[in-house]
């Protein structure tokens, strides 16, 4: 592994973890959302390095584009970017950070003590995950999950419209007629 590659991956890891921590710590929700966009972009670069260009560009368009625009829109719509800082349960921050360290330690121990030898990730050509190959696999073998996901998106759209629709006038008219 050349040194320049190590520097590249270390830089990406530092940016990804740093932006995730920035999202966690920042009090202002808008800054949290922008840190999360940075994190998504960094993970997209990691996908590119792993030989997944289609997933990387979907990540940019779907996550960093559509989903985060929705988040920023709702944050500015509600005007709820700041909450007063108080601790509802005493010492619950310290307990949570301790539990997080336990969780990381468990994951690291699992990785080091399982009986499986792992080599480096092999280099793969651009043909492996080309959009053509992904499309062929998705529309032949995985057609049913694709249709199910399409139906989930449709029902989520209908649900979102139903939830945010203002109160209907016709029900009040009906009750007035009954009076």
């Amino acid at each position: 592994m050349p040194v320049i590659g190590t520097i590249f991956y270390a830089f990406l890891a530092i940016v990804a973890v740093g932006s995730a921590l920035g999202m966690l710590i920042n009090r202002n929700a808008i800054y949290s959302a922008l840190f999360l966009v940075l994190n998504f972009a960094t993970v997209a670069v990691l996908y590119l390095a792993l030989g997944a260009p289609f997933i990387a560009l979907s990540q940019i368009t779907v996550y960093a584009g559509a989903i985060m625009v929705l988040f920023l829109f709702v944050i500015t719509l509600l005007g709820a970017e700041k909450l007063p800082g108080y601790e509802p349960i005493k010492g619950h921050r310290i307990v949570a950070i301790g539990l997080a360290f336990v969780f990381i330690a468990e994951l690291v121990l699992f990785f080091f003590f399982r009986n499986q030898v792992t080599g480096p990730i092999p280099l793969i050509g651009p043909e492996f995950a080309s959009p053509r190959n992904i499309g062929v696999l998705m529309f032949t073998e995985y057609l049913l999950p694709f249709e199910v996901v399409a139906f989930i998106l449709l029902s989520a759209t209908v649900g979102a419209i139903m939830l945010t629709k203002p109160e209907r006038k016709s029900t009040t008219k009906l009750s007035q007629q009954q009076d």
Partner: protein
Amino acid sequence: MPLGYFLGLSAIMFTVGVLGVILRRNALVIFMSLELMFNAANLVFVTYASYYQILIGQIFVFFVMAVAAAEVAVGLALMVAIFRTKHSIDIDQMSSLKG
């Protein structure tokens, strides 16, 4: 690049997401932490897809993205609906169902 690098990065990102859900009280930031956890899981999917040279991992990442988009749409609509009645998105005040 060794496999452990990507798994470790994903584990750290997932833990930051869990911490966000536990520590923050702004419901929107909790949703963002959920997205971060989805992202960490997707990274493991793509890592093993290129480690074992099978494409199915990347296809499932695509499905996870679509379902996450649906979840965000419904979740943010719920946030707007809750904000209309309670005029706050502090999750400590969403305790009407508490016995």
